[in-house]
């Protein structure tokens, strides 16, 4: 099993160490990515089902209408979550007691509540309640002669914010807390010498963050951000509980209408799998490229 490393005087030592030892069959079997084969089998099976069985083809045709909503919901929510996450992540390490504690409170609240419950709560309780506040504020502003701000504020009613928008708000608030922790960890991974060097050159805290700390921190956490994007594609399925017509909701509608549960949910699972696999691949390629470029 073990190769002797050149005690044998007959072996030319330099050559032996320069050429890699050929892999044994057992090692090749162990290292081969068999799971990729499994993915191929699933892809071919899915293609076969959709092209040969009309019921699967119909299911795909119906359900794919939701792809647009799934993608746009994820993209909007993720972009907003990035902004919330950056602000809250900076807040978590702020020296200002109020800012730091508010940010921590937000992160801990969100992390302690199931996403599904948060989506219900934000869409059906928090949004209507804040609209009530806007209304009161608008009425007060109008009565104080600031009608140009007050009237549009008071005019926003519960119907004018669609469930799609509420779903995006709910997802971004939820993921904002996750991303805040990623940003915080990234910033804290940068040695304090960097901040000191920047400050010693006369930069303000904000300038040092923007030009020195964040560019390095974000580069460090890009893989984690990518992972959370993939996770959000999957969690966007939860917005179907708000009757947002993403692929999950459309699949449920299709199943309920036709009683073809096998077709509906097989297609649904394969659509998610396709999206997440492609995204994971993109993330992995980006990560590798970044790694190749990394300078000490």
């Amino acid at each position: 099993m073990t190769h002797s490393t050149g005690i044998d005087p007959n072996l030319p030592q330099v050559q032996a160490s320069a050429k890699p030892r050929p892999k044994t069959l057992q090692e090749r079997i162990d290292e081969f990515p068999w799971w990729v084969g499994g993915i191929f089998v699933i892809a071919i099976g899915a293609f076969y089902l959709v092209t040969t069985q009309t019921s699967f083809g119909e299911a795909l045709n119906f359900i794919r209408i939701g792809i647009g909503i799934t993608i746009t919901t994820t993209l909007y929510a993720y972009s907003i979550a990035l902004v919330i996450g950056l602000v809250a992540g900076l807040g978590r390490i702020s020296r200002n007691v109020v800012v730091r504690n508010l940010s921590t409170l937000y992160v801990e609240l969100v992390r302690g509540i199931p996403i599904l419950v948060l989506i219900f709560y934000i869409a059906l309780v928090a949004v209507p309640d804040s609209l009530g506040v806007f209304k009161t504020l608008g009425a007060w502003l109008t009565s104080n002669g600031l009608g140009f701000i007050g009237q549009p504020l008071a005019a926003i009613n519960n119907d004018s914010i669609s469930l799609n928008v509420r779903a995006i708000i709910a997802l971004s608030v939820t993921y904002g807390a996750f991303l805040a922790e990623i940003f915080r960890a990234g910033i804290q991974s940068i040695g304090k010498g960097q901040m000191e060097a920047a400050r010693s050159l006369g930069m303000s805290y904000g300038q040092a963050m923007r030009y020195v700390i964040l560019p390095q921190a974000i580069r460090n956490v890009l893989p984690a951000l990518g992972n959370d994007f993939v996770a959000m594609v999957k969690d966007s399925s939860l917005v179907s509980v708000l009757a947002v017509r993403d692929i999950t909701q459309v699949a449920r509608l299709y199943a309920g209408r036709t009683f073809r549960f096998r077709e509906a949910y097989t297609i649904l699972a394969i659509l998610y799998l396709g999206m997440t696999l492609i995204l994971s691949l993109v993330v992995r390629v980006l990560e590798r490229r970044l790694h190749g470029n990394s300078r000490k």
Partner: protein
Amino acid sequence: MATAASKNIIEIRNLHKYFGDVQALRGVNLNVERGKVVVIVGPSGSGKSTLLRCINHLEVETEGEVWVDGKRLSEKNKDINSIRAEIGMVFQLFNLFPHLSVLDNIVLAQRVVRGRKKDEAVQIAHEQLKRVGISEKADNFPGQLSGGQQQRVAIARALAMNPKIMLFDEPTSALDPEMIKEVLDVMLALAKDGMTMVCVTHEMGFARAAADEVIFMDHGLIVEKGSPDAVFNHPQEERTKLFLSQILSH
């Protein structure tokens, strides 16, 4: 009171600094005249680095006053950034910005803090790189340079801001022996040009060659100060003698 016109560019009075319960500085008084080179020596934990870091407010004094160029440093001082821009600092571990090229390392603060135009900042960066002798590395990244080269870039970065004072915090302690000289040569040239310098260093050769004043610190206090000859060859205090015998015996 120090004024902008006074000959002392740094005045430190009764400086105390605590880290929690640990007292790093216990009443330091120090004046540095314009154009003078002061070298601070002492055993580790004696407070030399803390003293240096108080001069540009990377450490905030617990008690006492630090005046730089006629301005008092304090927690409330909103001008701290503009005061720091006049004080270059070189760190033991270089602290170059690894995501920026050598040139951009030197350009960044010029543009952000000094508000210089890009062309001007780039030109000054090239001049400073030439001054420290590594013009050819402008487009490299810090990770591709040796320790000595990185430290020279750090010096160029500080000089590009046209500081009135340069602080050196053990600039050669993290370097391999064969790279120490290239950094010391740059520092010697700087001293010869009349730069006001405060250096924490163990390089006695540099201290003898460049220092106007050598300060020996121990346990958060200045024990002895004087010309290099006085402190190194005719130390008065027992603690100074002991320290010198320890570092010169090998």
